[in-house]
């Protein structure tokens, strides 16, 4: 059981705010206990209640706390019980009843102090180094025999994401996915967020599927890369192959993008592109040798964008840059998401969800897909600050580039 204590103060009795919060706790599937309550005597007097919330899991507790906070219930400092630690019995094996992480900011109580868990990631364990007073998430394949791992829920504090100040679109949407939202406003605010991230020198991650090339949206992504709006790119073999095929032959899977005509022997372009890059030794080499002179990956090399290409079982080739060992790809992606403030996921199910699993909940995530299920799936995996846009990726990127080209709103200030 996970527990936390909240305080509710103000005119909470006459306004039925207290009963409303208690009902909310129960309706969300948790339980409460009123620890103490003081009721104001006169009309203007404030009342005050301390309530313990108890939930079956840390995730549910975090959800309940975030929900009731909107109605004025604020968390009180938790108990100071230390975290229980146990040694990993073997390489790649966690101790029994290890604490499974969420992607929310988390603190752990060690040697009488709360320390921040580094690199929040869901479905990992927490490894503690008591001497250095550091704690970090660790995926099961990386744990080593004897590592100190947190077991049980004691001494763990999850910090629910607030509706933060200053306001950002990402809090207010809070994982809403809809085909009915006004996209113009959303895209404009995404553009503003991208500008803000870059002004603060933050990193933007793009995760993209091959549909981006088929739909003719690649030039917009190139535009974003060229204007320093992309620092990291995750994709699979497909995106790279289609992009390079377009750079070499003007086709994507044999179809001319500008004429929507099938090239004769066009299906071979795809395989020739792979062969050409294999011969050159890789994408960077092909760009440096002047073989690839345009496109997404040409710009990535030119602008020094970090890209990770993760392989899959259906890949043709693959290109030499594709990492076919999933765990290695995952680890490299894990390394590259450090320091990312915004993730833009477009037209990809597999890579978007894989990346969503690795991201801390504090990273703002935009998921664009023509299929609502992908967008919902990502939100359901606990990507808290996710905005979903159900739309074709080409109009999305076109409008995003237009918004980024416009003068910022601040420019109107007298």
């Amino acid at each position, binding site marked *: 059981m996970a527990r936390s204590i909240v305080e509710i103060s103000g005119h909470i009795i006459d306004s*039925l*705010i207290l009963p409303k919060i208690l009902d909310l706790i129960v309706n969300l599937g948790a339980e409460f206990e009123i620890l103490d309550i003081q009721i104001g005597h006169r009309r203007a007097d404030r009342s005050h209640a301390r309530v313990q919330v108890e939930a079956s899991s840390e995730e549910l507790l975090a959800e309940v706390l975030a929900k009731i906070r909107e109605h*004025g219930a604020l968390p009180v400092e938790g108990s100071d019980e230390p975290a229980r630690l146990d040694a990993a019995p073997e390489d790649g094996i966690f101790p029994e009843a290890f604490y499974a992480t969420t992607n929310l900011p988390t603190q752990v109580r060690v040697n009488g102090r709360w320390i921040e868990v580094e690199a929040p990631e869901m479905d990992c364990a927490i490894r503690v180094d008591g001497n250095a007073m550091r704690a970090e998430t660790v995926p099961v394949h990386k744990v080593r025999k004897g590592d100190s791992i947190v077991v049980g829920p004691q001494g763990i504090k999850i910090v629910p994401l607030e509706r933060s100040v*200053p306001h950002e679109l990402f809090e207010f949407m809070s994982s809403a996915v809809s085909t009915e939202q006004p996209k113009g*406003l959303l895209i404009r605010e995404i553009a503003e967020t991208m500008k803000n991230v870059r002004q603060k020198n933050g990193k933007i991650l793009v995760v993209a599927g091959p549909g981006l090339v088929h739909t003719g949206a690649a030039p917009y992504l190139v535009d974003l890369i060229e204007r320093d709006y992309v620092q990291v790119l995750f994709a699979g073999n497909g995106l790279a192959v289609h992009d390079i095929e377009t750079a070499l032959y003007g086709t994507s899977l044999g179809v001319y993008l500008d004429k929507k005509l099938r090239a004769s022997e066009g299906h071979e372009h795809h395989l020739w592109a792979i062969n050409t890059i294999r011969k050159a030794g890789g994408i960077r080499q092909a760009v440096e040798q002047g073989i690839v002179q345009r496109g997404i990956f040409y710009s990535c090399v030119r602008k020094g964008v970090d890209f990770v290409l993760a392989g899959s079982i259906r890949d043709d080739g693959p290109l030499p840059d594709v990492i076919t060992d999933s765990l290695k790809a995952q680890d490299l992606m894990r390394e590259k998401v450090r320091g990312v403030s915004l993730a833009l996921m477009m037209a990809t199910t597999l890579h978007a969800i894989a990346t969503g699993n690795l991201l801390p909940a504090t990273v703002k995530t935009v998921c664009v897909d023509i299929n609502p299920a992908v967008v919902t799936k990502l939100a359901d995996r606990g990507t808290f600050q996710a905005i979903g846009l159900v739309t074709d990726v080409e109009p999305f990127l076109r409008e995003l580039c237009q918004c980024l080209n416009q003068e910022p709103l601040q420019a109107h*200030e007298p």
Partner: protein
Amino acid sequence: MQLLMCAPSYYGIEYEINPWMSRARQSDPQRAQQQWNSLRRLLEEQLSLDVRLVDAQPGLPDMVFTANAGLTWKNQFIVSNFRYEVRRREAPHFEAWFRNLGFEIVHLPREYYFEGEGDLLKCGESWFAGYHIRSDINAHQKVAEIIEQEILSFELTNEWFYHLDTCFCPLSDEHVLFYPPAFDSYGLEVLEKHIPDLIPVAAEEAARFACNAIVADRDIVMNTGCPRVREKLEALGFRVFETPLDEFIKAGGSAKCLVLSIM
């Protein structure tokens, strides 16, 4: 009674922060100016109210909706913490205006959103506050500490009625106009317990912003096109003045949104 207004010199639909707004459906600047002038004339000439003006600022199209600037109380001005970035830059202009007038400026903690009279209205001995869509409940509890009055908070549950003053209008200590679907069952129960005569407004007249009326003693100013509300109010002995405000409804505001009471 003193009211603060701001001319619609830079008014327009430049962003979309409530369901009424659509950049595809622009306001007509000339008509907006005419409608605002008529409202101002009505308040000054027919109701003999003292209207003060704050200078409009380029790039701040919603500054015309002065009701959201903050709350005045006993020579204090509690400045709004707007939820949306696009409106947040209005605050320093209102703050400077009230400081010049000799008001003590009060800031709420930055982490609590507060949108002034838009979400906080007095009725009888109590104040009624709307939260969740724009203002935060904890902001209102801070205001309650400052003004030492009871504030009853109501969750607003309908995005179309995003401020309390779009769905709730105190007419006197006993009478309140309100639009029931903007509240949840807890809110409705509290309203029924605290207000002797609750007058529900039908959907079509709520959408004409019948609840967004200016009340000055027995005089009430509202947008045109609310005949049923008008009839009810006249039966209760109020004088009702209608003036067209369609250009402002395009941004989700009407008469009350265009004025801030200086108390």
